[in-house]
């Protein structure tokens, strides 16, 4: 469940990221297309307005700056109202033929003379309306009459906003006012349509510079835009081109989409060029907005063109397909990843189980590669060999760990042979610990097969050094006395039997000396058993020193020792003499004082011994008889006052 949620979350995050990326790429590609379309509009708009500027300036110089016109304006400068009325009429009469025949044909919407004070002197488009001051609401007229320079650009007005070309009229240094020649958007639109593929266009004007600024009775020239209530368009009842565009099904469709577009109002308020793409079923649409700034630098309007753009459909389909393919890929990957995780979890689980088994086992496990280098070691092996894993990984096991006979080459190494021969090996080998100490191990080396090829060997081993030592100790204790490490009764009897068989064949004499310490019970009772044991050990040592290597000194138990002496020669007398001599030497050796303890606890003890001896040279007497006789001889000594030797 955990992995399912993880994979599901991962899939969702990846899909989200992918879709976001695809969306951004789509937007980027669309923006390139839109930017191109918008650029075409901007360049075309600039070209059209500049073209008009050149034409209109020529008209101004050729038609307006005539002597007769200038004469009327000179007279008007100093005339009273009634005189001005006549002069206004004369000016109208003079210019009207030009206005009607050429300027109106050119698309001029307004031809407007202003006084030097910036008042309206004569509007050809509204001749009856004059005398109102424009200096405060029309920057173009203010600039032309105060700074005496030509002004060009879009601007609002009392009658109608338009594309203004305002020229100051100066004759022989006398400022006579200014003239304004304005174009309607229809004119601009007409020329734009010759350059653009989009045949539908609308001028979207800000309310502040149109219906809010014009004479109240001219407010009917405008109607609220279908896109935003902050913008107006020309009233379709007054503008044939606007009506044509607004009534166009394409414009209606795009305007509906624009109105529903969430950010359109924000974009409109920014006053920047932008384009809005729409894909509706199999149709692609574009609305290009070219921001128009008025003469004072204020954002005033948008020239908007509407058109089809099939490229958008192609781009949309392309990225939709990318999303679908991305979804399939990510879904498949997520499922695959989920399965991998599941398998990995299973494998990890098995690995942990294996590692637990390997690490918790008391057997050492090594994995060596074909070169004999250790590639894995478990905890038990580290502990046995005294290495840290980091020290031993990579070590060459044949020379560093495995102890061989000097002549054994790697080819003959029983462990490495498991790889080369692909055969298992079980046996005892000697390993070298980090400290150099050698240990005996029982090992099982098995070739590690992968793809039917031995790529190494798994060596499972156990340290049996202690085990082996214990076995030897047990075996030793079966034939030797644990306290004195002298042969015990069993070994003595074995050797005595052997000696008897030997003397029977060789006719040489052998002998048994039976020793019993005198008054041993006293030291045990007075000094304790520890001191008693020490005395017995010392006695054993003195006996070994006194006797030859070929003689057997044994302890039967308690303070009784039996010595088997061989060979004593073929002659009885000599054998007897020799045995007496040896017995006397023993007696003398054992009579020497014994020192125990240290410093102020040190003390000396003197202990005598009673010795009974028996010579034998054939098998006429059994082992028991020999021992019994020797024991008897020894008791005779005991009874006779101890600390003496009796040979039978």
């Amino acid at each position, binding site marked *: 469940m955990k992995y399912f949620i993880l994979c599901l979350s991962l899939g969702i995050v990846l899909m989200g990221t992918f879709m976001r990326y695809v969306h951004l790429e789509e937007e980027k590609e669309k923006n390139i297309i839109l930017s191109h379309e918008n650029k075409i509009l901007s360049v075309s708009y600039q070209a059209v307005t500049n073209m008009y500027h050149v034409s209109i300036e020529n008209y101004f110089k050729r038609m307006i700056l005539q002597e007769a016109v200038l004469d009327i304006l000179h007279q008007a400068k100093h005339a009273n109202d*009634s005189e*001005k*009325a*006549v*002069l*206004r*009429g*004369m000016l*109208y*009469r003079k210019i*009207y033929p030009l206005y009607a025949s050429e300027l109106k044909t050119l698309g001029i919407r307004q031809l407007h003379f202003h006084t030097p004070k910036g008042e309206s002197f*004569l509007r050809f488009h509204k*001749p*009856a309306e*004059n*005398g109102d001051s424009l200096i405060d609401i029309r920057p173009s007229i203010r600039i032309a009459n105060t700074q005496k320079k030509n002004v060009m650009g879009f601007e609002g007005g009392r009658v109608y906003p338009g594309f203004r070309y305002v020229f100051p009229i100066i004759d022989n240094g006398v400022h006579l006012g200014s003239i304004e020649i304005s174009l309607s958007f229809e004119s601009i639109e007409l020329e734009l349509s010759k350059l653009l593929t989009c045949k539908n266009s609308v001028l979207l004007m800000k309310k502040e510079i149109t219906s809010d600024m014009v004479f*109240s*009775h*001219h407010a*009917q*020239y405008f109607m609220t835009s279908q896109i935003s209530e902050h913008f107006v368009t020309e*009233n379709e*009842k*007054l503008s044939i081109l606007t009506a044509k565009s607004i009534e166009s099904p394409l414009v209606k469709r795009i305007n509906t989409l624009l109105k529903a577009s969430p950010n359109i109002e924000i974009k409109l308020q920014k006053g920047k060029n932008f384009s809005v793409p729409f894909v509706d079923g199999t149709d692609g649409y574009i609305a290009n907005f070219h921001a128009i700034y008025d003469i004072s630098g204020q954002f005033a309007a948008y020239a908007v063109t509407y058109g089809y753009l099939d490229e958008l459909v192609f781009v949309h389909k392309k990225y939709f397909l990318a999303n679908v393919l991305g979804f399939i890929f990510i879904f498949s990957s997520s499922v695959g990843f989920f399965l991998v995780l599941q398998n990995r979890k299973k494998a990890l689980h098995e690995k942990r189980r294996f590692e637990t088994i390997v690490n918790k086992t008391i057997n050492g496990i090594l994995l060596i590669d074909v070169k004999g280098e250790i590639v894995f070691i478990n905890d038990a092996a580290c502990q046995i060999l005294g290495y840290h894993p980091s020290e031993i990984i990579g070590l060459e096991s044949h020379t560093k760990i495995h102890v061989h006979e000097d002549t054994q080459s790697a080819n003959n190494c029983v462990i490495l042979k498991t790889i080369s021969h692909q055969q298992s090996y079980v046996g005892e080998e000697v390993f070298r610990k980090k400290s150099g100490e050698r240990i005996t191990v029982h090992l099982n080396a098995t070739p590690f097969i992968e793809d039917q090829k031995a790529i190494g060997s798994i060596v499972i081993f156990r340290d049996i050094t202690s085990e082996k030592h214990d076995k030897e100790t047990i075996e030793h204790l079966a034939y030797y006395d644990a306290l004195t490490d002298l042969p015990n009764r069993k070994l003595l009897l074995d050797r005595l039997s052997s000696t008897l068989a030997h003397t029977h064949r060789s006719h040489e004499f052998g002998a048994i000396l039976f020793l019993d310490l005198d008054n041993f019970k006293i030291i045990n009772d007075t000094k304790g058993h520890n001191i008693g044991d020490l005395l017995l050990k010392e006695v054993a040592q003195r006996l070994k020193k006194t006797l030859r290597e070929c003689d057997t000194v044994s302890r039967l138990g308690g303070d009784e020792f039996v010595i088997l002496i061989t060979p004593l020669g073929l002659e009885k007398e000599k054998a007897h003499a020799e045995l007496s001599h040896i017995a006397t030497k023993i007696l003398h050796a054992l009579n020497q004082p014994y020192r125990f303890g240290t410093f102020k606890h040190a003390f000396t003890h003197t202990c005598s011994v009673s010795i009974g001896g028996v010579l034998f040279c054939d098998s006429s007497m059994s082992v028991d008889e020999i021992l019994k006789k020797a024991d008897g001889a020894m008791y005779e000594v005991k009874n006779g006052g101890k600390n003496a030797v009796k040979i039978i």
Partner: protein
Amino acid sequence: MKSFVMVLLLLSSMVWVDARPLIFAPLPLSNTQRVFEDFSPMIHYLEKHLGERIEFHYEKQYDTIVRLFQENKIDIAYFDPLPFIALHKTFQGAKPLITFHESGGTHGYRCVLVKFAGDKIDVNHSPRMKVALTQPLSTCGYIKTKFLLKEYYGKELDNMLFSYLGKHDEVALSVIRGDFLVGGVKESVAHEYATLGLEIITSTKMLPGFTLVVNTQTLTQAQIETIKHTLLSTPKEVYQTWGKELSYGMSEANATLFDALSHDALEFNVPPHGNYP
């Protein structure tokens, strides 16, 4: 069965009438833009109070408007007296409802003979001077201009060169431009163009004012009453914002005022075309 068909036809006719918006057509006193901007506020005001859409219909020719009215394609019209008389003579469904006052609140207007102040007129030296007229059916057109020329100069219009220009302001401007020496227009138009040197030579007596005429064959009595009541009760501060011709107030139309003018219309045989291109 016959009755049933009649009822069906009547219902169909009512459905048709209800299906289209009301049509309002003013006389083309000036250009489209000007006419539209002058009448739109009143139209909107009426739409709001009637609860019905009123469509603006512009026609250049007076006689076309008269014909469309007769054909029940116009429901409300703005006429000066003579076109109304012409209409009423053949179409009894035309009913004068409201008369608009002139500036100063006068319940009528004058037609005037105008000229450009910079021009000098000597009728003796130019007996065939050029005269600008509005339209044949316009009150201030042929009939009153003819009367004023006769009265002031003692000359006959028919002996002069005259042409119909259509709109009052076009007559005024053509005189200012010098295309015509004199012209006949409504007095208010002459005043409007005084700032361009247009001056009044002589004027008529007071005539009945411009009138809102309703079509009783397309409008119900209730609609007619609502229009009348709405306009007559329009506050001054509202109608003052309407177009110039409508901004001086209104009163209920008096059909008897048209009688005298009917006599003039009958007296003259108005030529349908000018004698000067």
